[in-house]
């Protein structure tokens, strides 16, 4: 083959290089932007945050992540948004399991916690409730305890359906944390702990 067409091999190799380079570039970019490992993102326990995404000096990775998602990041002056699609051990959240969001809540003027589907639509159970706020959740001091489960629970309960893969969004409005979000003390954030799976 190479002896018959001596010029084919280099061209073929060049095309191969071009194609594999393109594929590799697109694949790694998608992995980095969607996987939450992009520079500019921070992970604490179960929570992912993009502290600079809503700032005037936002980094290009955070801008790309939010352009792809299509939502507006919170500016540091507004507060801090934290997202969790995994529990504190790193396992993806599933409607077949029950979870408890428990722990210290950082000081903020107000907070809201809502459940979403992975595409960003609200996840509402049969009760029509998708979340809690600082005004309607039962809170003891600075500790919160919210249970996500398919089975009814006492206290703050958010219903899940078996097929759900929920994303939790915790928003702290006007919190001193947004000033130090890139170097946060993770112990000041609540845990997302699995408490059981299946029937």
């Amino acid at each position, binding site marked *: 083959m190479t*002896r018959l067409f001596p010029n084919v091999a280099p061209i073929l*190799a*060049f095309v*191969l*290089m*071009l194609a*594999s*380079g*393109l594929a*590799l*570039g*697109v694949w*790694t*970019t998608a992995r*980095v*932007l969607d996987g939450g490992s992009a520079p500019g993102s921070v992970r604490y326990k179960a929570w992912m945050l993009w502290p600079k*995404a*809503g*700032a*005037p000096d*936002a980094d*290009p*990775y955070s*801008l*790309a992540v*939010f*352009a*792809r*998602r*299509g*939502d*507006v*990041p919170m*500016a540091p*002056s*507004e507060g801090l948004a934290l*997202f969790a699609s995994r529990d504190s051990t790193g396992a993806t959240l599933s409607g077949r399991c029950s979870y408890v969001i428990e722990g210290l809540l950082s000081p903020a*003027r*107000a907070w*809201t916690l*809502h459940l*979403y589907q992975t*595409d*960003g*639509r*609200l996840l*509402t159970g049969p009760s*029509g*409730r*998708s*979340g809690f*706020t*600082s*005004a*309607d959740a039962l809170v003891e001091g600075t500790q919160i305890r919210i249970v996500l489960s398919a089975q009814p629970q006492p206290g703050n309960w958010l219903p899940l359906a078996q097929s759900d893969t929920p*994303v939790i*969004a915790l*928003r702290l*409005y*006007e919190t001193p944390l947004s000033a130090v979000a890139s170097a946060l003390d993770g112990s000041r954030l609540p845990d997302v702990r699995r408490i059981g799976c299946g029937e």
Partner: protein
Amino acid sequence: MKKADPRQRLIRAGPLVIGAILIAAIVHVAVVLLMPQVAMLHASARLAAQAPANTLELLQPTEPGQDALALPFADPSMITAVCRFDLSAGAVRLRVPVSDSFLSVSLLSPTGHVILALTDRAATRRVIDMVLVTPEQQKLLEAQDPEDEPVQEIRIRLGQATGVALIRGLALRDAEKAAMSALLGRATCKQE
């Protein structure tokens, strides 16, 4: 011709592998940098579709189970109004009354970048009074300013003539939503 031994093949493939990695790196940087420009569903594009230029539009409260969310991952506890501003024919004034609840006004560039965000703390006499200007309009306004008293409004000089103002007020209880909608309904976004 003698068949090349594997080591020689590897050496010959080396430049190609390096070339592929270089191309991948260039593609990566290009995709990241161009994403805000090419992502047609970024926040500004979604919001701009909701409102005509220089008028304030109150978005429907995001009710549970509803698919009419203007933005993915939007906080349903927030009542939202948008104004797509265009400064090409003159400065635009935004007046937003505030209550005791958290309220924010954020300005988004046409590619969805947050240029600036103010909260209700920036209100004077319970109104956030902002004037969005281009650098030229700012000079004109300053020339007209009275010399003996400070300007009450917040002037914001923008590099780009267009963008989206997003006004969001927090209603922590369902019962507060109507009052917050009424409050944002009194906000205005008008060309001067």
